[in-house]
């Protein structure tokens, strides 16, 4: 099992640390050739505009779209935006997942927050049934899911913050900023 982490910009090193913690081999992906031999890919938090522009500049859009047809991809925050089909504004998107996303949905940095989530799928997959502590930073929300995409988790007010479509996973929050490896373990189960 070898998982790549898109390393154009953002907190890719934090994802690599989490993957190493659960004993997974990792690779940094900056160019199309770096996708060779990977079983899955994580797209980290960062600035989605920056990541999109760099992906276009280094011809990563098509290779990433091809990769996502058969292999697992997980986007956290900016990565989730990049995975989506629609964000209501013009910037490069992979359009792999049938989710509509709104950027900076909670306001500015002073509105960024931490909270606990109940995520049944995660409990089932890992056998560890306690709330998932989630860190949201200038976070997007998933406005709606369509097609085969399904909701994994919502805030108390009903806003969607995690979704899955087969082997594709999107979270508004940052599991890589916590010590809880359950989300990474869950993603590995999708990549296997």
């Amino acid at each position, binding site marked *: 099992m070898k998982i790549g982490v898109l390393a*154009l*910009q953002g907190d890719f090193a934090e994802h690599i640390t989490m993957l190493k913690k659960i004993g997974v081999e990792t690779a940094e992906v*900056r160019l199309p050739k770096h996708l060779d031999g990977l079983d899955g890919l994580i797209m980290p938090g960062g600035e989605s*505009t920056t990541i999109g*522009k760099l992906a276009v500049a280094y011809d990563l859009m098509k290779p990433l779209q091809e990769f996502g047809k058969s292999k697992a991809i997980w986007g956290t925050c900016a990565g989730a935006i990049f995975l989506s089909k629609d964000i209501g504004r013009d910037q490069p998107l992979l359009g792999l997942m049938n989710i509509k996303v709104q950027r900076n949905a909670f306001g500015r*940095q002073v509105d*960024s927050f931490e909270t606990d989530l109940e995520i049944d799928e995660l409990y089932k997959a890992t056998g560890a049934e306690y709330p998932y502590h989630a860190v949201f930073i200038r976070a997007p929300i998933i406005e709606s899911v369509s097609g085969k995409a399904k909701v994994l988790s919502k805030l108390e007010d009903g806003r969607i913050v995690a979704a899955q479509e087969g082997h594709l996973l999107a979270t508004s929050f940052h599991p890589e900023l916590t010590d809880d490896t359950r989300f990474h373990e869950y993603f590995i189960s999708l990549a296997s």
Partner: protein
Amino acid sequence: MEAKTGTWTEKKGLAQMLKGGVIMDVVNAEQAKIAEDAGACAVMALERVPADIRADGGVARMSDPDMILKIMDAVTIPVMAKCRIGHFVEAQILESIGVDYIDESEVLTPADEEHHILKHNFKVPFVCGCRNIGEALRRIGEGAAMIRTKGEAGTGDVVEAVRHARSVIGAIKQIQNMDDEELMTFAKNNGAPYELIKEVKTLGRMPVVNFAAGGVATPADAALMMQLGVDGVFVGSGIFKSGDPAKRAAAIVKSVTHYQDASILAEVSKNLGEAMVGRNAAQMPEAEKLAVRGW
């Protein structure tokens, strides 16, 4: 559970999202758009870039909130703004208008020559400059959630940025090799909080994200700082004081992502037009150096 805002994780976390990116100084909404289009991961809103502050002389203060708000409206990426060292009221104002990060900056004229702002008192995160490990850890002790090595702003000369980054990163390596008995003496000699020295030893790195600043003018400069081991770069006067800002900005963004790939660095360094006119930092009188501000 009730949602918690303004936590240490949140403050540090935003800086983690900026890693591997370029934060650009901009003086109006139009420049902010150019920076965002070039791939900046954040912008620093200020009235004058450091090169102009140097040229103009006088007292440099926080920018007009209206000008900062216009920049916040123009872009979707995070917007930072500067307050004077020790000027906690300027910081309160910046927090109230909703900037994403405050830079308590030596580039502005200090308001207090002994004390920095107690940054733990704020919900908004702060970035502060440093020349060495002691200064970095004192600022983190006061609540800075991100550090940047100072370099010498407004010169276009990378030599001071290199000096400060080497000093900080060298000290981290030194701390890692120390016996626990040596840590208190190191803390004393460097004027650094003991608990944070212990944390640096455990982590093997700075407890918060560390960018380089002050004199970065070319893609090669930016990649040099990345290879020395910083997490990203600030570019101040280097972009909008150059011949072709949009092209240079995009090239520096690419150089930070591909900092280890010399063939890509060669490609992005081609035909960038004129770099900013530099000022040799080594020949600058001590009194003109901005980096010495900070205590």
